[in-house]
């Protein structure tokens, strides 16, 4: 063996040892379970369900985008906010920063990204012949409410993510299941008659439904929808803030 190949081999060996340590100590058993569940779930759903849903509507692409993109923004906002403390661990160790403000800052960034997405969706809706007007000024209001709701969840999850690292892996499949249990890629009519309570008590749908109606039909949210959104947002922010206050010291100790 030449000196060069020996060096390469030793480098490879070190890489394997590093990977082994990462696998052994970096992931808990439950992390692995969730890590595998996510792609399996996606394969199952995309191969079996999607072709059926597509056949149900003529404007399916717009319908799908108007539901899926808000949902993705919501789920990414929650995931991002829940990682706010871990991501800023170095700063939190050295500076007296407020942890709740780090979560809020993360949600704000997600909101700004979503406003850009909404502009694109509006353009897509116009291309599909949807009427544009002053009613669309509701879009940033609904976006703000949805991300404030996500911020409340983030406030709860951010310290939990520090205390229970498996939450990071659990979030992806849970959000997948949640999305497929919500009329995002399929019409509400498919589940409305069998599970009306689920549609009423599924918080993210309270935001996605009026957003979609606004984009597809130019329909302003009715008072009942607004009440529902405000209720979920206020509940999430209050519960999230209380939980955050109770858990932040313990989480900070662990960073």
């Amino acid at each position, binding site marked *: 063996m030449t000196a060069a190949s020996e060096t390469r081999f030793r480098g490879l060996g070190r890489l394997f040892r590093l990977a082994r340590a990462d696998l052994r100590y970096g992931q808990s058993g439950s992390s692995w379970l969730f890590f595998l569940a996510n792609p399996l779930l996606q394969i199952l759903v995309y191969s079996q369900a999607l072709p059926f849903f597509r056949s149900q509507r003529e404007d399916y692409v717009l319908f799908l985008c108007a539901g899926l993109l808000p949902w993705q923004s919501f789920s990414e906002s929650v995931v991002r906010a829940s990682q706010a403390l871990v991501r800023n661990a170095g700063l939190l*160790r050295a*500076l007296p920063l407020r942890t709740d403000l780090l979560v809020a800052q993360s949600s704000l960034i997600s909101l700004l990204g979503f406003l850009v997405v909404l502009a694109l969706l509006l353009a897509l809706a116009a291309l599909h012949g949807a009427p544009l007007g002053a009613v669309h000024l509701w879009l940033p209001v609904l976006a703000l409410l949805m991300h404030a709701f996500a911020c409340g969840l983030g406030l709860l999850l951010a310290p939990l993510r520090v205390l229970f*690292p498996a939450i990071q892996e659990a979030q992806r499949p849970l959000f997948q299941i949640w999305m497929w249990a919500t009329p995002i890629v399929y019409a509400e009519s498919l589940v409305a008659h069998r599970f009306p309570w689920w549609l009423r008590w599924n918080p993210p749908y309270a935001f996605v439904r009026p957003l979609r109606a606004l984009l597809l039909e130019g329909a302003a949210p009715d008072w009942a929808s607004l009440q529902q959104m405000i209720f979920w947002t206020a509940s999430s922010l209050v519960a999230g803030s209380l939980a955050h206050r109770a858990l932040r010291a313990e989480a900070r*100790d662990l960073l």
Partner: protein
Amino acid sequence: MSDPRAPLVSLEKAGKRYRVYASPGERLLDWLSLGRRSGGAEWWGVRGVSLQIRPGEAIGVVGANGAGKTTLLRLVAGLVEPTEGTREARGRVLPLLALGTGMRAELTGRENVRLAADLLGLPAGYADAELGRIEAFADLGDFFDRPLAFYSRGMKTRLAFSLIAFAEADLFVFDEALAGGDAGFREKCHDWLDAIRAAGAAVILATHQPASLLRFCERALVLRRGAIEWDGEPKAAVAMIRDDKAGRAPASS
């Protein structure tokens, strides 16, 4: 009117407890039992610490690794709340527990000064107003406008220390901050510390270097197993650390 010699920070029988679990699952079981089961172990970083830091004082904190130096500094700086006892503070406390906090590898030294000044909570406009003096103090030459990723450890220390060199605070809290940099830069930092003390600011620094302790501090704290074992003259503290293996007590208090 407030007394100018009143303590900047007072700790009264303060303690910081950490709860240590073997795994997150054990923590979850504890939570689910609503306190009936106690699987985690308690560990006190510091306990029963009473300390007052007055304007203009320079206090050195010494002790073996794990003695509680960093936890004590974190308590003093208000980064953690005491689990028991109290902490009272007045004036502006600037914690520098990790030099380079908030700096990013992809940004230049100049950009990092602006970013880190914001994160450290230095007054708006501080970085811009002092940029020339900071650049001169760091003495990094062309590297000041190169990304931090190309800096050596010593250069990073220079940049980070220079950032706060012109900041105003009533109490500076350092953790081994002077360990990096070459001898010339360390001497510059020593002169700076003398200057801020002369201006009335207080300093508390944790160090493993007896020379630093003797050079600046008029008061030393020796920590052992989370408690202040000695609070007095630095010379005696250095002797105590040196005699530690033999178990001898300090000559005077």
